[in-house]
């Protein structure tokens, strides 16, 4: 073989990663600004939204499929993220924002994407026109659509936590679950409450197109928990620093593939390349679990003592390997720990080893938050708000993104199971503390930003 030829070991490694270890591009997400669609006539605004999205994303799915064929790498999802709709709702104060939800659903169906994100409001410091109406309309919007995703940013390191919004989100999540109780309470599975929400995140349900972004961009989210687990399990006796090096090398390869696909897609679509989100995003498929990575590192079951340390190391190594592979790293970038979407997390939760408290601790060292967790349906709205407040505090103080996506399982109790199917998987109903947080939540107002927010 001369120099230009490939090493057979490298080729077979790539094939094995894709075929046996679930390596894939999790999502190519087109971010589209809708700022130029703002109109005081809501029907006109909806027409503009539909036209702009279907024009910009006309070839998104087709292009993704073409890249899949040519490079032999699966691209699981093709999605769209838009400007937070509260900004458009602000111009039409007397109309029900749900009209926007319907327009987005129609546009998603026409383009053939499985999700459109951005039924969102950014209220970390306070509510502006349109914000409150949009937030109150979320349960109805998620009830009457199937492809719409919603998110609300209620806190940030620079501005503190908007506790009025936190209180409201507890009520919104509970109402959304009740409205969709006949469909496995699917509403809140498409709703994320954020602290420090990234404006270029390609992953659902929290994707939206931030106002600081270009008119239209392509963002890519890579995956690969299966590849990392399989690599780690080949080295049972390595020390943790040596293991970190192995993870870095694996993350590098995965991210390079994401970078390549993003660059190709951007060129083919004639759209600016935004970012690669180098996350380890699990799926319920066998061998595609973040929990199983932690177990391969030496823990009997995910959730036992040592889990937070193992996750911290994993999260850091993934980032360090990924940043060299792409000059445009963004989004959430780290390890995801959604319970229902991860076979190992599901088992550990059913087993009782993985609890809500442990998950909360884990969110302090990984890229997201309490994600895809079913809780009993008879829980108080103020308890959900308090769960959100805790999580937002972790994000605010640690200068990182945190999020809450909990699903009250209406009519179910601890040990029952919500079945979403597909990538969303199935969620065991996990116990929550039944002591009241109501008086704390009822106070409202704002938790001031921490001392280290004053950096200028």
């Amino acid at each position, binding site marked *: *073989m001369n120099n230009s*030829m*490939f*090493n*057979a070991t*490298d*080729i*077979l*490694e*790539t*094939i094995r990663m*894709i*075929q046996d270890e679930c390596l894939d591009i999790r999502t190519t997400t087109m971010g589209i600004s809708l700022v130029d669609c703002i109109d005081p006539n809501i029907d006109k605004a909806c027409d503009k939204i539909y036209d702009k999205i279907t024009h910009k994303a006309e070839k998104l799915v087709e292009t993704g499929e*073409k890249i899949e*064929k*040519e*490079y*032999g*790498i699966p691209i699981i999802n093709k999605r769209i993220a838009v400007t937070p709709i509260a900004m458009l709702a602000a111009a039409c104060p007397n109309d029900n924002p749900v009209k926007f939800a319907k327009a987005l659903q129609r546009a998603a169906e026409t383009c053939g994407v499985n999700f459109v994100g951005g039924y969102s409001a950014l209220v970390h410091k306070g509510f502006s026109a349109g914000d409150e109406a949009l937030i109150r309309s979320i349960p109805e919007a998620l009830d009457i659509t199937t492809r719409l995703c919603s998110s609300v940013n209620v806190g940030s390191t620079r501005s503190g936590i908007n506790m009025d919004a936190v209180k409201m989100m507890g009520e919104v999540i509970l109402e959304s679950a009740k409205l969709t109780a006949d469909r496995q309470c699917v509403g809140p599975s498409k709703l994320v409450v954020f602290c420090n929400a990234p404006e270029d995140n390609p992953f659902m349900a929290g994707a939206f197109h931030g106002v600081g972004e270009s008119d239209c961009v392509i963002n890519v989210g890579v995956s690969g928990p299966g590849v990392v687990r399989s690599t780690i399990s080949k080295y049972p006796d390595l020390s943790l620093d040596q293991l970190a090096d192995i993870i870095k090398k694996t993350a590098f*390869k995965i991210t*390079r*593939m994401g*970078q*390549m696909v993003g660059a*190709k897609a951007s060129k083919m679509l004639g759209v600016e390349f935004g970012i690669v989100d180098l996350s380890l995003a699990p799926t319920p498929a066998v061998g595609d679990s973040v929990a199983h990575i932690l177990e391969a590192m030496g823990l009997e079951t995910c959730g036992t003592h040592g889990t937070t340390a193992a996750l911290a190391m994993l999260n850091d190594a993934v980032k360090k390997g990924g940043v060299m592979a792409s000059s445009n790293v963004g989004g959430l970038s780290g390890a995801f720990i959604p319970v229902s979407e991860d076979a190992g997390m599901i088992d550990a939760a059913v087993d009782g080893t993985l609890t809500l408290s442990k998950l909360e601790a884990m969110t302090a060292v990984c890229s997201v938050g309490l994600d895809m967790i079913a809780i009993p349906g008879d829980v108080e709205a103020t308890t959900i708000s308090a769960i959100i407040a805790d999580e937002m505090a972790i994000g605010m103080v640690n200068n990182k993104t945190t999020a809450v996506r909990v699903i009250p399982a209406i009519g179910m109790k601890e040990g029952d199971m919500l079945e979403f199917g597909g990538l969303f998987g199935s969620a065991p109903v996990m116990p929550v503390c039944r002591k009241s947080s109501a008086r704390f939540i009822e106070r409202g107002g704002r938790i001031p930003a921490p001392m280290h927010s004053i950096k200028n």
Partner: protein
Amino acid sequence: MRAVITVIGNDNVGILHKVSGVCAKYQANVIEVTQSVLQEMFAMIMMVDISKMNADFASMSDELTALGTELGLSIHTMHEDIFNAMHRI
């Protein structure tokens, strides 16, 4: 432009012939082949030039995948760029 075709599975007579037959049909010139048989598992890696093909790449890729299914082998056809991206700095 080149592509890499990998064939993995149980060894039997005429695999190389059948795969290169598909390449010839699409005018994809075979540049290099390495193959090995380890404990009856056949692994072949074939590098082909796809710059002068007479049909689109996806058609050949589909036909090779179908051939793999027919022969009980796993056949992957991928553009070389993916290996460059993952294994070269």
